[in-house]
């Protein structure tokens, strides 16, 4: 079980090979792609920044929790850092297991937890020249009244 960062495009073929297992019948992978809009704004590109020393520990804890919770064979997660363009892959999760149900469940668990717990930040650059840190700018714009509906 390994969580890692990549500053260049994620090599999914190599990562997938690490999950091969003669006893595995199912393999599920998730890729997060950079969309051209978010919350009604047109996005041109992104930057990801991580607090890597803590993020790596938290990522490993998520993979260990997935392995404890679901009877899987292998799981990996790789997250990009740095500048990304539309359609680039921001994050990859792969899980192999004996039966497919566990691979789906574990893969979804891992990406959900990564998005909520791992200290990684995303700055969006918009077509009007603005930019902003996702989940931060609106909070900071209205710190006493933020409703976290975003």
């Amino acid at each position, binding site marked *: 079980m390994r969580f890692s960062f990549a500053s260049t495009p994620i090599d999914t073929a190599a990562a997938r090979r690490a999950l091969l297992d003669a006893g595995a019948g199912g393999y599920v992978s998730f890729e997060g792609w950079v969309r051209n809009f978010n919350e009604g704004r047109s996005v041109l590109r992104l930057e990801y*920044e991580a607090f890597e020393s*803590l993020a790596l*520990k938290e990522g490993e804890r998520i993979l260990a929790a997935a392995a404890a919770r679901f009877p899987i064979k292998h799981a990996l997660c790789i997250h990009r850092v740095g500048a990304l363009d539309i359609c680039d892959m921001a994050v990859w999760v792969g899980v192999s297991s004996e039966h497919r149900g566990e691979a789906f469940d574990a893969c979804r668990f891992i990406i959900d937890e990564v998005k909520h717990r*791992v200290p*990684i930040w995303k700055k969006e650059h918009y077509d009007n020249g603005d930019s902003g840190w996702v989940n931060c700018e609106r909070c900071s714009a209205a710190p006493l009244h933020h409703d976290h509906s975003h």
Partner: protein
Amino acid sequence: MHINVQYFALMREQAGRSQESVDTQAATPADLFDELCARHGFSLGRDQLKVAVNSEFGTWTQTLAAGDTVVFIPPVAGG
């Protein structure tokens, strides 16, 4: 005592640096944050941040020791 502070993302931009060494009497991360907020004018409050001490999640009220590294963690957005 000296405390190392690292900044990421919005906090880094508002502090104007990615790290600094602070000579402080702050006993806890909460005290340290209030001191640095007065200096740098962070837009996020403590209720919107988490804190890490020495690359592990910590609490606002734990006791700081000389040489500790503190990070104020804004809302995350991985994936």
